[in-house]
């Protein structure tokens, strides 16, 4: 079984050779990282994750956390820096205690590139969503944390209480259509802001019928909770065994780098 994952390691540095697979290939389905939750399950080496159960049943074999993580990389990318990847694997697998990812962590975000019509013109804008978790009730939701729209000449602060259900990421936040159609239904009490905020302004433009949300164009997830690392994860829609939500970028990053990343990439104000 290990051979399958060694092949993964080979492909990480040599490119992807896997071809087209016929419909309803259980193996392809099992291997595909179907949701970001499954990405975290595999990263954490969770016993119940589908791929481990599948391999156990099909091949009567176990796989290691290292093997699982190697296969979370986009193996079609040929320019992975070997020394960086190996250092990352050492940091994750050999650390004591080893780091784990949780859906309820504070330091990971979904960055959505969205399309809309503003005064009849096609525009794009970025929404950064993060998970809000209430310790007391153990309830979670996706909240807008950052916003950037170059067609609006105002700061990108996101003071609204727009909340989406904690599984909205499964359908790539399709529910945003409803939020932009009637934002008042989804906005919790907004904290007072000291300056005009772009997203609030945009929501008002919705009410004035000057803005219409169309759809989410692209989503990337950014994991900043691992010490010294930033992982960028995006979806690769192809029918082979290295597909779904995979690591597309891996950046060694100290605290200062992460703060800069939050500001410049994720539009998060300190």
């Amino acid at each position, binding site marked *: 079984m290990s051979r399958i994952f060694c092949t993964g390691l080979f492909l990480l540095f040599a490119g992807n050779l896997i071809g087209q697979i016929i*419909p*309803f290939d259980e193996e392809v389905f099992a291997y595909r990282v179907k*949701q970001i939750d499954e990405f975290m399950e595999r990263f954490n080496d969770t016993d119940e994750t589908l791929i481990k159960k599948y391999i156990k049943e099909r091949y009567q074999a176990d796989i290691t956390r290292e093997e699982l993580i190697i296969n979370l990389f986009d193996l079609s990318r040929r320019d992975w820096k070997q020394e960086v990847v190996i250092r990352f694997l050492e940091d994750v697998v050999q650390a004591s205690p080893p780091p784990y990812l949780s859906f309820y962590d504070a330091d990971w975000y979904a960055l959505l590139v969205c399309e809309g019509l503003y005064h009849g013109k096609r525009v794009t804008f970025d929404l950064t969503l993060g998970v809000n978790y209430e310790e007391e009730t153990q*309830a*979670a939701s996706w909240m807008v944390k950052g916003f950037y729209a170059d067609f609006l000449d105002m700061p990108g602060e996101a003071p609204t209480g727009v909340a989406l*259900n904690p599984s909205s990421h499964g*359908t*790539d936040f399709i529910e945003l*259509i409803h939020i932009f159609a009637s934002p008042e239904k989804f906005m919790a009490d907004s904290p007072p802001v000291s300056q005009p905020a772009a997203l609030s302004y945009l929501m008002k433009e919705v009410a004035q019928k000057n803005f219409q949300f169309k759809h989410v164009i692209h989503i990337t997830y950014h994991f900043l909770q691992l010490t010294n690392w930033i992982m960028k994860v995006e979806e690769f829609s192809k*029918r082979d065994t290295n597909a779904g939500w995979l690591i597309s970028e891996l950046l060694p990053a100290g605290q200062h780098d992460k703060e800069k990343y939050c500001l410049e990439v994720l539009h998060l104000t300190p």
Partner: protein
Amino acid sequence: MLCLRYLLALFTLFPVWSYSVSEAQYLQDVAYAKDGSVEGIIEINKDRLTVKPAGGEPASLARDKVYLAVKSDGSFISFNNPAPRWIENTTHEVHKLITTQALVYAADHVDILGDKVGFQEYYSGRYVSLPREQFVMIIYKTGMHELLTDPQQAARYLANLRTLDHFSRPETERKVKLSDEEQQYFSKRALRKTEALSFYLKVISDKDADVLYQDNAIQEALKLFVDKDKLVEVSSLHREQNITYKIEEYLNNLRMLPYQKIELLWNQIQYINQIKQGPDGNYYGTITVEQVFRAYDKDNKVTYEDFTVKAIEIIIKPFNMIVDGDSIPKWDVFLSNIGVKQTEQL
């Protein structure tokens, strides 16, 4: 004929009254004696108990050699009681789970999973999972019963039970996270509803189906969803951009498709993420499934086919069920937004 097929499919898709059937369930009266169990029609005299098997010779057992007798309707008598009497099972709306504490839990659905008994509690609708050792006997809605401990011990516990008409509520800690068993149970329910949806979609798009029958299928399909505002994303190999419809609009549009009939095939393997609680108290999850869509013309030729990966949001939320005029809160799974993750040629 079509209607019968419809009813059969409904029954297959929603076996609401299903329960686990094991070899230890009995259709006849059973007397559990020291020398083993005897099946037949039971009659109790002063000192003896007669069991008449269908077509067989009656067996006469001394009462002090019998632990317990259970009738085919679930009524039972424990001879561990100094003054034994029949505890009648008069109601059959729920499965009854009898505990070692002589409590009776009412359940809609029962699963025996290894050393756990999982059941959907009738009054709250919550799925509860408790150690098997806490239970003595299950009396199913049909009257069939199943002992979960040996007959001698069962008789001892059942001797303390006075009625089957008073239900207790299982005391479980207030949990905001679903247990693995609950997660499994609701996942299965969600998958059944997904299958039901594809059945209705076939009916709605079938040009040979009666209009009233299609109307009914639309109404039934809508009931699977948490509300009519939920969204369905539709993809096609003929266009780059997916289109999003509200569910009702989507179902009505299906009738207008230029196909004679459609076929939906689902991959047998699915993935469901960890179900999470939202701020509104409901629970949310997403199922990822693969689907093959085929459309046929009048000559039964395939005119369009594609392969899609779909993401189906589910919501587990309480709803009120009216039983005998009373409103009973229950939990169930509803479908929510449906997204398309990938569309390809076959």
